[in-house]
């Protein structure tokens, strides 16, 4: 069941040297892509602290896109591999927290790959749209006490 009116909100972390420039290039080339991603510039994908992802998800983002230089092409030599290691463990943790690991995606895009950046962004938005909203922030029902009837219902 997909919500057709659902517009995902996605936070994108981009590396200053490649993917942020790829986004710039997509802009310069006037390539159109889905408007749901809001970018944050980091110096390197290696700067990505898993806290950022958890914070984004807990603050209402439906997905997080992490982009970095291609393996072997990191401007800081090899830090994107470190991002990759964290990403893989983070995905396992998210799965354990009941979040579809597909909500966090690592994309390699070089500064020359504006088209790839645009295509990946649009594709990711569609993937998240299929997954539906994450709804982490619906505070209204977060802390409510379970009623007796509900308690019975869930127990049965």
């Amino acid at each position, binding site marked *: 069941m997909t919500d057709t009116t659902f*517009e995902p*909100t996605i*936070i994108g972390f981009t590396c200053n*040297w490649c993917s*942020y*420039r790829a*986004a*710039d290039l*997509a*802009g*310069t080339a*006037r*390539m*159109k*892509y889905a*408007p*749901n991603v*809001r*970018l*944050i*510039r*980091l*110096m*390197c994908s*290696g*700067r*990505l*602290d*898993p*806290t*950022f992802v958890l*914070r*984004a998800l807990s*603050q*209402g*983002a439906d997905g997080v896109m992490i982009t970095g230089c*291609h393996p*072997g*092409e*990191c*401007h*800081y*030599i*090899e*830090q994107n591999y*470190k*991002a990759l290691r*964290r990403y893989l463990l983070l995905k396992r943790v998210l799965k354990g927290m009941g979040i579809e690991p597909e909500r966090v995606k690592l994309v390699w895009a070089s500064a020359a790959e504006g088209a790839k950046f*645009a295509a990946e962004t649009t594709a990711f938005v569609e993937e998240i749209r299929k997954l539906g909203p994450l709804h982490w*922030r619906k505070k209204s029902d977060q802390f409510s006490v379970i009623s007796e009837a509900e308690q019975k219902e869930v127990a049965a």
Partner: protein
Amino acid sequence: MTERIGVYVCHCGSNIAGVVDVVDVANWAAEKLGRQGVVIAREYKFMCSSLGQELIEKDIKELRLTRIVVAACSPHLHEKTFRIAAKNAGLNPYLVELASIREQVSWVHTDKTVATQKAKAVVSGAVSRVIENQALDELKVPINPNTLVVGGGIAGIQAALEIANAGFHVYLVEREPSIGGHMAQFDKTFPTLDCSACILTPRMVEAGTHPNITLMTWSEVEKVTGYVGSFNVTIRKKARFVNEELCTGCGICEEKCPKKVIDDVYEAGLGYRKAVYTPFAQAVPKYPVMDTQNCTYFLKGTCKACEKFCPTGAIDFNQTDQFINVEVGNIILATGYDLFDARKVSNYGYGRLPNVFTSLEFERLSNAAGPTNGNIVLRDGKTTPQSVGIIHCVGSRDRNFNNYCSVICCMQGLKFAHLVHERTGATVYNFYIDMRTAYKAYDEFYQRVLEEGTLFVRGKVAEVTDAARHSNEKGKLIIQTEDTLAGKQRRIPVDMVILSSGLQPRHDAKEVGKLFGISCSTDGWFTEKHPKLDPVATMTEGIYIAGCAQGPKDIPSSVAQGAAASARVLDKILQKEVALEPVRASVDKEKCSGCRICNGLCPYHAILFLEKEQVTEINLALCQGCGTCVAACPAGAISGTGFSNEQILAQIDGLLMENLEMV
């Protein structure tokens, strides 16, 4: 203290205003972001114009603004502009934040409502972030005026001479026994056909005798520590087994040495040298080296013919490798290229079919100082070919090997065609995919070769074989190719095939890159700081690249890059000190527990562990600011300026501000 923030939304003509309702964004920021400290929000036609900048400067002074957000184009374009404007008005430049609403909003989205919403989110993120920005000062480090140049090919020689002539000292390190590089192997250079050795050797001699150049051949860089301005480099000076103090370069040792060895390097495997040798007559320096892999004395313990005959007693079998430490302020890497191994294209038969030659082999064949004294003959050493096929793009522009164009092969192929034609009168075929003769006087050379009667077949050669199908093919090499202009398959029998092999990064480029802390592209060439605007600098301050180490190029371009790199170095030297971007990581020693998790993460060796205090420390000048250690510190003891946790987290919250439920 509550911050006083100014928000400036740029129309960029209609570039932004055509899609984003900039007035709405500015009004919204003034209204909704007031509680975050936004005291003024303006929109303006061109913020980057001098009037736009003056507007900001005026506001900073009059409204006592403490933070600035400019919503305009990408920070890669105008971040510096607005930082300077802030500085002019007395505000620390790092308290300015750019929100990209052009490249990331107006240019990539079409729906005005959605684009305006997103622009608001981006501005909100920037405002939240700028509150957490800290005033930063640029780091200044002094520059040691000495320079290290690695690689003694034409690019390295050029770079070394430029700096040395300007009056500063250069250490020129070369792995082989002599400087000169690939250029020393060539016979003629395109398109002028002047003798390679004639133009190169004077430069080699100049480099070898220059008072400001310390030449270290048969040497390799072992270790590099330090940072721009003060690198400490350890150089391994391999044992020559020849005492340079005593050697006069008379060449008697080489003459008397009984051991003949195939010369894989200088003669490209086509000729011989001795076990003690100088690679070629004009070698600089003139001292020979001992090849311990092949020397009879090293293998069997007897011989020592060289020692017996040396008139000055310069042969020293007890020499060992020496390690030399030098202090330099800048480093230029001009480590050159390897020739693509044509054996990999097995359908061209190199290594299987005797009369298939590589380009370097042909250079030696046609070189008057080469193994055949410049006679172009078949592998039997005597037969002159009647017909020669030159195949372009061997290993280049080929998904199976290297995707890139090797740049020089077309011109090299034309040069070979000319030389074969001139010296043997043979029929010459050139098999090419596209003829690339860009640059001065190159196409004219192509025209000249055309007029000389060289035959050109446009098509990728499928196979070179000795399997004859018809009687006229017997005993020949048959080139099977598609002729895309004639639109048919052709089989052309020839006596000799020359493969215009492409250029490849040095086999050890990755390790060398790691040693100096610079990166390689997927192809393996060293990555420049900017492919167009900064082609000789690298991401690591103080390390420059020149020549083919950066990518395939011909001699004029290599020379130009060598000179360009040296200009950059001279600029640094003359400034005496260098300002570094203040995006750096630092350790709070109170919080650091010395767990050492970050210790293995830094490719720049900026993270040091203090054994005594059992805490980690970051060398600010070595740190390049990638932030990996900041993200990795489990104790939260490492913080990074410019991209601090507080800044990023605030930006996340700002981008996700609840009232911005987008679209």
